[in-house]
């Protein structure tokens, strides 16, 4: 069976490309006005259009959490988020967490506790942790582990990640 006739949707439609859509997105406090194709994910906007490569592309299917960013204060996976749908949104990435050169308490805690090995999942882990603390639903180590389960670490730094979050949580007293 030739690929073009296989009954699975492999055949690409040769329609003319839809128009690019104007989108306004504020990232780490800076407003950007872009014209993007509707299939562009927020992850690709951050990395390819805005050159903010701190946010990582891991699985690109919402299974690993490496692309976690905050949109309007809530953690989401940017790989499954179409940027056109987030017109007008405020996005915070790992690049936007430090203030005046001082690391965010979660970033400092990850360093203090050696909460990473290769570091690839770390920006997602840190953004997710910042949101977890703001949500205020986790207090025990069990609850932290459960509510961080969307962030996979293939190096297996989980023990130190939990310790880092506990330190940050204590130093921030539950405040974002």
């Amino acid at each position, binding site marked *: 069976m030739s690929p073009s006739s296989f009954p699975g949707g492999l055949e690409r*439609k040769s329609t003319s490309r*839809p128009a690019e859509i104007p989108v306004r997105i504020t990232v780490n406090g800076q407003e950007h006005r872009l014209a993007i194709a509707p299939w562009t994910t927020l992850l690709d906007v951050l990395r390819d259009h805005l050159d903010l490569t701190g946010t990582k592309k891991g699985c690109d299917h919402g299974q690993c959490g490496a692309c976690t960013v905050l949109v309007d204060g809530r953690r989401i996976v940017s790989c499954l988020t179409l940027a056109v749908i987030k017109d007008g949104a405020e996005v915070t990435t790992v690049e936007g967490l430090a203030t005046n050169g001082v690391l965010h308490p979660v970033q400092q805690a990850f360093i203090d506790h050696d909460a990473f090995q290769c570091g690839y999942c770390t920006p997602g882990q840190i953004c*997710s942790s910042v949101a977890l603390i703001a949500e205020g639903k986790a207090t*025990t180590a069990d609850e932290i582990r459960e509510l961080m389960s969307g962030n996979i670490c293939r190096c297996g730094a989980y023990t130190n990640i939990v310790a880092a979050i506990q330190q940050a949580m204590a130093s921030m007293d539950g405040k974002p």
Partner: protein
Amino acid sequence: MIDFDYARASDIPDAIRQIAADPNAKLIAGGTNLVDLMKYEVVNPTRLIDITHLPLNTIEETASGGLRIGALMPNSDLAYHPLIEKRYPLVSSAILAGASQQLRNMASTGGNLMQRTRCFYFYDIATPCNKRVPGSGCSAINGINRINAILGTSESCIATHPSDLCIALAALDATVHVAGPAGERVIAFTDFHRLPGDTPQIDTNLAPDEIIVAIELPPRGFPENYSYLKIRDRLSYAFALVSVAAAMEIERGRIRDVRIALGGVAHKPWRKVEAEAALRGEAPERKAFTRAAGILLQDAKGYTHNAFKIELARRAIERTLTQAANGTPQMQAIKKIR
């Protein structure tokens, strides 16, 4: 992903007009499943209609004492809503058993009902799948079918519905409010999803030109005696092999009313009123729970790799009913099963 056009719906009638006008269009809300399916080219809409701006993200008390949940209410907001936590903790527990906090923040209540199966072959466009391409065959029946269904299967399809929330909503007799060109109608939750039969490409009884606007919960939420137990291959962030939603009312040592719904075992949330009838009036004890489990599973059929689910489901049903009867619901953060 295949190129597509993008449009925003300005209000509910506009969304209905747009979806009715284009059979190749899809509505998009959270997008957690649809965007993934589009990346794999399993679903290839030529147009996405963005409904995220519609005013459907509220929870309101109904005149009858229930709750009406807007279809765009994010899963996380629903799980943590004070009225849900207090009156329908089974709903909270089921939501928090599924996905990750990031996905729950994105996913909508209506979208949760509309998510597609996670059958490996449905996702793999290099293989036949009757749900993806009607008439092409089912690769799971004689393939890797550990995660597939044991109840209500057909020769065309042995896929399961992946939702946790839907299992709780089925147990609680929720209703689905949908709107289409002819106006609004109400669908009983257990009638919303379909069994595969010989048309497994159709997951639900929602018409192609209809949109879910709300889910309604009836007044009784069983807040005292309930449990949602989910058994899976890892302890968090995985789909169910078997899950059980149980809710009970106990009066003077006897079961006055009970609900049991199963997830991970069928093409839709699995309820059997005969099993519930067999428990009414009985003492909430293991012997009765075993009998109810037998009724729920009496037509179960295992395939090459999933026959273990039949015994697993029997034990999970007994355990979940015991947890509900004892008022010790399964906690989703603490993995110990009591």
